[in-house]
C-alpha cells in the first residue's frame, strides 16, 4: 500500500509545480509532446517484435485458412469457409483429441506432485536447494533432447529395462509398442519435463505467504496438513488456477515429445502433429491453418468455461 501512494505522489509532483507564467499554466509544448511520446518510444521495440513475430503470422495463418494454398506454389485461390467445413465434417480429425486425455490425466498427477514437492520444500528441509535444482532441471533441457534421451530410455534393452532388471524384474515389454503403453510412457515423459515448472510456480507462491501465519498456526497447534489445507492451498489458489488452465491447453496442444519420439505412430498422434502432417506431408497448408485456428478457438473456449466455473477470487488470508 505504501508503495502505491509514493508513486502517486511522484507522478503528481511535476503537475503540481508552481506556474512560472501567469498566461501558460501548462508545461511548454515540446515537453508535452515528449511526455506523450516517451512511453511509446519505450514500447516501440517490444511492440514491433510482438507484431512481427506473433500477430502478423497469426493474421497470415487466418488468411491462409480461407485459401487452398499448398505452402509453396505461387498461386493460391480463395476458397471461403471450405476448409472449415472440411474440418467439421471429418470426424476422424477430432478423434486425436482422445490422446489428449492421457496428457490431461498426466497433468493431474503432475500438479499433485508439484504441489506436494513445493509444500515439502517450502518447509525447512535438509538439502532444500539441491532438491529444488533437481526438480526444476528437466524443464531447462531442450524438448528435442528430451525426446532423444527417452527414446533410448524406452528402447528394447534400454535404460528402463536395465534399471528394472537391476531390481530383478526382467520386463520384456515394448514400452512404446502398443497404443496405451506408448501414450502412458509419453505422458510420463511430459510429467517429468513440466513438473519442474509447476513446482517453481507453486513454490514462489507459497513463499510469498507471510511467515507469521505459519507461526500463528503452529501456536494454535496446527499440524503440517492443516497448515497446507487452511493456509497454503487457499493462499496459492490463483496460481493453481493458472496452472490448471496451462495444463489443459498444454494437453490439447501436445507436440514436441510425441513428434520426436514416435512421430505420431502407434496411436500417439495429437491434434498438432496431425496439423503439421496436413501442412507438410500432404501440402494442405490452407486446411492445416484452419485446423490451427480451430485449435486456438477450442483452447480459448475451454479457458473461458474454466474461468466461468472457477472465478478468480481475491485471496484474503488475513
Amino acid at each position, binding site marked *: 500500500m505504501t508503495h502505491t501512494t509514493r508513486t502517486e505522489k511522484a507522478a503528481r509532483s511535476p503537475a503540481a509545480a508552481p506556474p512560472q507564467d501567469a498566461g501558460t499554466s501548462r508545461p511548454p509544448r515540446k515537453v508535452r509532446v515528449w511526455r506523450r511520446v516517451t512511453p511509446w518510444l519505450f514500447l516501440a521495440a517490444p511492440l514491433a517484435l510482438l507484431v512481427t513475430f506473433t500477430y502478423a503470422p497469426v*493474421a497470415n495463418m487466418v488468411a491462409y485458412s480461407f485459401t487452398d494454398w499448398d505452402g*509453396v506454389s505461387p498461386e493460391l485461390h480463395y476458397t471461403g469457409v471450405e476448409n472449415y467445413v472440411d474440418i467439421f465434417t471429418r470426424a476422424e480429425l477430432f478423434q486425436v483429441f482422445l490422446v489428449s486425455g492421457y496428457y490431461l490425466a498426466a497433468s493431474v498427477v503432475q500438479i499433485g506432485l508439484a504441489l506436494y514437492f513445493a509444500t515439502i520444500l517450502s518447509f525447512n528441509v535438509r538439502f532444500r536447494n539441491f532438491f529444488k535444482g533437481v526438480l526444476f532441471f528437466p524443464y531447462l533441457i531442450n524438448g528435442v533432447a528430451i525426446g532423444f534421451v527417452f527414446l533410448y530410455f524406452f528402447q528394447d534393452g534400454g535404460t528402463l529395462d536395465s534399471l528394472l532388471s537391476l531390481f530383478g524384474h526382467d520386463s520384456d515389454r515394448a514400452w512404446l509398442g*502398443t497404443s496405451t503403453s506408448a501414450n502412458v510412457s509419453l505422458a510420463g515423459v511430459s510429467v517429468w519435463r513440466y513438473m519442474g515448472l509447476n513446482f517453481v510456480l507453486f513454490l514462489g507462491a507459497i513463499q510469498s505467504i507471510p511467515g507469521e501465519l505459519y507461526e500463528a498456526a503452529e501456536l494454535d497447534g496446527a499440524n503440517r496438513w492443516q497448515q497446507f489445507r487452511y493456509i497454503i492451498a487457499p493462499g496459492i489458489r490463483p496460481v493453481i488456477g493458472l496452472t490448471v488452465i496451462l495444463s489443459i491447453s498444454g494437453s490439447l496442444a501436445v507436440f514436441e515429445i510425441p513428434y520426436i519420439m514416435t512421430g505420431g*505412430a*502407434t*496411436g500417439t498422434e495429437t491434434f498438432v502433429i496431425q496439423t503439421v502432417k496436413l501442412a507438410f*506431408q500432404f501440402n494442405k497448408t490452407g486446411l492445416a491453418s484452419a485446423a490451427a485456428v480451430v485449435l486456438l478457438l477450442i483452447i480459448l473456449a475451454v479457458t473461458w468455461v474454466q474461468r466461468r466455473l472457477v472465478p478468480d477470487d481475491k485471496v484474503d488470508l488475513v
Partner: protein
Amino acid sequence: MNHRRSLIGTLLAAALMAAGCTGSGGTSKGADAKAPDDPSKVSGTIKVLTHRTDIVQDGTMQKYADEFNKTYPKVKVEFEAITGYEAEVKIRMNTENYGDVLMIPAVIKKNDYPKFFASLGTEAERREKYRFTDYTAVDGKVYGQTTNGVMPGFVYNKKVWREAGVTDWPTTPAEFLTALKAIKSRTDAVPYYTNFKDMWPLTSWTSVNGSVHCDTRATTRLTEGDPWAEGADLRVGDRLLYDIVNQGLAEKDPTTTNWEASKPRLAKGEIGTMWLGTWAIIQFRQAAEKAGSDPDDIGFMPFPTQVDGEFCATAAPDYNQAVNVHSPHKEAARAWIDWFTEKSTYVADNLAMSPLRDAPLPDVLKAYEDAGVKLIEVDDSEGALVKEIDNASEVGIYAPDYRQDLVDLARGAKDGDVDDFLSGLGRRWTEAEEALGS
C-alpha cells in the same frame, strides 16, 4: 479510446498486408539456362544447395568443384548443405533466394517447375542422351537433371542368407517368407528390419510399384484404379510387409529402431535384410569396413516376383538438379549441372547408376546382370497426378504413416483386419481419383 482504436486498426492493416504477400516469387516464367559455348568465358559465383551434408562436410564436394574449375576457371562454386532439405528448401522457395543450383524438392508440383526453374532444353533432344527426362519435363521442356539413378531392392547380408541355406533369390513372396523363416530358425540374425521409427525407410515400399508386374505404365495405373486391388503392385508389396511382421520375422520392438545403428548391424550379420535401394549399398559397405566385416557380404536382390521367368527391377531418378529461374548466373549453373552429370566421378564414387544412357551398370549390380534381371524405366508422365491424388486422399504413399499403421496392425498393436485396411486405402484413393476427375 479513439487513439487506441486507430492504433489497433493500423496494426491490423499491417498484419493483413503481411498476410497478402505470400510467396509470389516473381512472374518470370519460362527462362532458359543455356549451356555455355566457351568454358573459359563463363564466370560468376554459384551457390549449390544440396541434401548431401555428409560429402560437403568431408570435402568430397569441394574436390568435385576443384576438378570443375579446371574446365571452368572463372566460375566459383559454393555449397550449402542442408539437413532437413525438403522442409527448409520448401520455405526458401517462397522467396527468390534458393541458390543457383538446387535439388528439386519433392513437394514442388510439376506444373510449377517453369515458375521456379530455368529449362535445360527440350525433352526430344535430351532424352537421346539421358535417362529419366520425363520426370522433370513440362510441356516438352526439361527442368531438371538427376545426379544418378536408383533401383529399389533388398539389401541383405549374404553370409546370413547362406548360413540359413538360401542361395537362390526367392522368386515369390511366399518363398521370400520361407527364406526369412529359415534365417530365423537357423541363425541368430533378425531376418528383416523395418526401420519403423525412422519412417522414411518404410516409404520406400512404394517403389515396389512397377517391379511386381514388370510394367512401365505402373505409375499411370495408379491414376486409373485401385492400387490396393487384389494382385495390384502396391497390394503385393504391402501384403509382403504385413506378412513379414505378422509372422514374427521382423525386429522385436519396431518403435525404437535406429537407422544409423542398423547399418553396422546388418553388416555384421545381426540383421538379415532390409528393403531399400541401390543408393544404400555404399553406406552399408562403408559400415561393414568400419565394423571390420567383409564389405562383399553386402548383397542386393530384387523384389521376389518374376514375370516370364525373369526378375524385374525399376530404375528411377534420385534428386534432380535444377537451375533457379532467378539466378543471375544461369550459364555457370548450367555448366555445373552438365559437368556434374557427365564428367564428375560422383556416380562412380557412390556405386550408383549413371543417368547417361550409354554408361554401363555399376559393378555392384553385376549380380543383376548375371541373373538376367530385366531393367525397366517406369513412365512418369502421370507422376504429377499421382501426387495430387495422394495429397487429396491423404493416403500418403510417399509418407510413412499408413505403413506404420500396417506394421502396427501386423504386430497386433492395433486392432483390425489387414484386408479391410488395404481396401480402405483403396477406397480413399479411388474417391480422390473421382473427385479430381481422372
